[in-house]
């Protein structure tokens, strides 16, 4: 059974998690189809922290839910430890022993009538994990930074602070020693002072347990703090991915550049504020799906490069960016980037 937690080394070459052409479509009003996730390919090696970044409505939470097996994909598949995810009850239960999720709001994630001990032990009971339950709960609380753990056993969620609540949620997920932790905006509802503490805890868990983390966020600062790699999602698809240094140091997709430019910082870059919010997944634009908001198209830069017709008419997937090292996995889905690659190919 694949649920046995193993050290990252023993998984060999195959990524821990793979998404192949994953699509999640919902039926909307008046027979329209919302393509919330629209053909995502992603590989997550064991022990890595990947940040999935994008605006509300870009499909990042739906993608996370489909990785958890909470949503059945319309197209493609989720593979974990080189096996396709199956959706019968038994398989899902076994799968979730290895793949756990934590949410944005720890207060909502905890049952108000359950003590912290019960909250952490619940997963062990559902998964029928044998052994000394009390010792496992104590170890999980302690690993999550709640020490001495016994002091927290009989407390209720309202008796601890927001940061401690998120630690309880993390302890509840980590008590099962999962291979993959999916974290959906784990610090966005927390105070500035607590935020760094929780992020430091996540990094420590990676180091100490070898857990792989997929963190879903709109916060690029968080990615700079903890992520090894970043995938930027727009309207159901990944439009740029690479290492954190590549992606935040030399972003190639105009959408990534815009996201980066609006991070509030004392030393302001010229912010490139896109108008409107992420558009409607029931009406994904033809051509490059970003073109109606793209600053390159709006400024006439695309026309000057002779690619405007492509931007408006031709859909495209991820392609390697020019100038990146051959070993690099920096990829972007942008006609301007592809054109630059060709130019470089011709001149070389």
């Amino acid at each position, binding site marked *: 059974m694949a649920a046995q937690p193993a050290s990252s080394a023993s998984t060999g070459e195959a990524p821990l998690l793979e998404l192949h052409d994953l699509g999640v479509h919902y039926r909307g009003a008046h027979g329209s189809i919302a393509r919330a996730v629209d053909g995502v390919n992603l590989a997550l090696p064991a022990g890595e922290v990947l940040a999935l970044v994008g*605006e*509300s409505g870009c499909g990042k939470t739906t993608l996370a839910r489909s990785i958890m097996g909470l949503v059945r994909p319309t197209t493609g598949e989720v593979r974990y430890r080189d096996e396709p995810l199956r959706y019968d009850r038994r398989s899902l239960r076994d799968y979730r022993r290895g793949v756990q999720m934590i949410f944005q709001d720890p207060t909502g994630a905890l049952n108000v009538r359950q003590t912290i001990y019960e909250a952490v032990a619940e997963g062990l009971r559902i998964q029928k994990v044998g052994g000394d339950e009390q010792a496992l709960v104590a170890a999980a609380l302690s690993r999550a930074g709640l020490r001495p753990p016994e002091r927290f056993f009989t407390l209720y969620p309202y008796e601890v*602070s*927001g*940061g401690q609540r998120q630690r309880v949620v993390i302890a509840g997920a980590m008590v099962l020693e999962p291979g993959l932790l999916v974290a959906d905006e784990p610090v966005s509802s927390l*105070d*500035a*002072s*607590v*935020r*760094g*503490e*929780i*992020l*430091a805890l996540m*990094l420590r868990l990676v180091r100490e347990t070898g857990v792989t983390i997929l963190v879903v966020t*709109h*916060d*690029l*600062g968080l990615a*700079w*703090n*903890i992520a090894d790699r970043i995938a930027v999602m727009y309207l159901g698809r990944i439009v740029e991915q690479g290492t*954190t240094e590549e992606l*935040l*140091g030399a972003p190639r997709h105009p959408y990534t550049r*815009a*996201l*980066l430019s*609006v*991070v*509030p*910082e*004392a030393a*302001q870059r010229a*912010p490139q*504020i*896109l*108008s409107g*919010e992420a558009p409607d997944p029931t009406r994904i634009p033809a051509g490059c799906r970003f073109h109606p908001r793209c600053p390159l198209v709006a400024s006439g830069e695309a026309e000057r490069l002779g690619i405007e017709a492509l931007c408006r008419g031709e859909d495209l997937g991820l392609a390697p960016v020019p100038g990146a090292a051959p070993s690099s996995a920096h990829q972007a889905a942008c006609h301007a980037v592809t054109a630059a690659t060709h130019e470089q190919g011709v001149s070389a």
Partner: protein
Amino acid sequence: MSTDPTSSASTGTEPLVDAPAPLLSVRDLHVTYKTAAGGVPAVRGLDLDLAAGETLGLAGESGCGKSTLGAALLRLLPRGTQVTGEVLLDGENVLAMKPGRLRAVRWSGMAIVFQGALHTLNPVQKIGRQIEEAIDLHRVAGKGSPRTQVAELLELVGLPARRADDYPHLLSGGQRQRVLIALALSCDPKLLVADEPTTALDVMVQAQVLRLLKSLQAEFQLAVLFITHDLSTLAAVCSRIAVMYAGRIVEEGPAQEVFAAPAHPYTRALAAAFPVIGDPAFRHNPSGLPGDPPDPRNLPTGCPFHPRCPDIREECPHTAVELWPAGPERRAACVKVLGR
């Protein structure tokens, strides 16, 4: 507690705004909530000045008293809450106003935008009607019909006028936050209190709302008190920052300087919580502040921050702190600024 904040005025640390009288002036404000278990002092002697057209950022963790302060300015606190001191708006003490005068000052003198825009609007009333209602109730004579005023307000905050006929559920989070700003601006206030106005919003929408606030402030000489725990946002939009801890201001000064070179260890921790992207110091190195804010009913002795201070000195647990000068136009409540 031996520190008396009013006494600081006589020690050469006059309020930082010069010549013209400030639009808003808070003097020795104390707010104590009444609970079954006794009084909870949320604001403990606070002084603040805000000039017309100025944007002041107020930072601090949950429970530091920053939202209590915002609510106290408009007297929006629960009945029975004990409030002492002065809140002078254009020289008139809000805390002493009769109900009729208070009603007139709310909205037209100062207005407030709360966080959680999603729940403040009436779900069964068109947004245009909700704005009209505020205009009807608070304005004697308007320019043009309420209908055209609503259209102007919506356009001011970047929404098409036809949105007036929509119900709140048809709008996105960012659009609803804009409606609340339009609502707050409907009676031409001189001061806007914005309590975490962008916290629930997405990055791009947050940038849109911040740009809107900035342009309104420039266009109408609107003074803004911007309350949030995100120091990096404050540094980007405010001219001055005040940092609150345990019911008092512990540091204040020009925004860029306070953010870039904090004088108080607490401010330093808040500033470091939001990494500078590209700075290797933050890479794989998130920074937080251990511990929790103190219980207001049971404050630590001496400097209230000392149990969490990464930089504690021997004298801190038994030295009363006050806002001491910490460079040009700057003050901080930390013994280290005394340079001894």
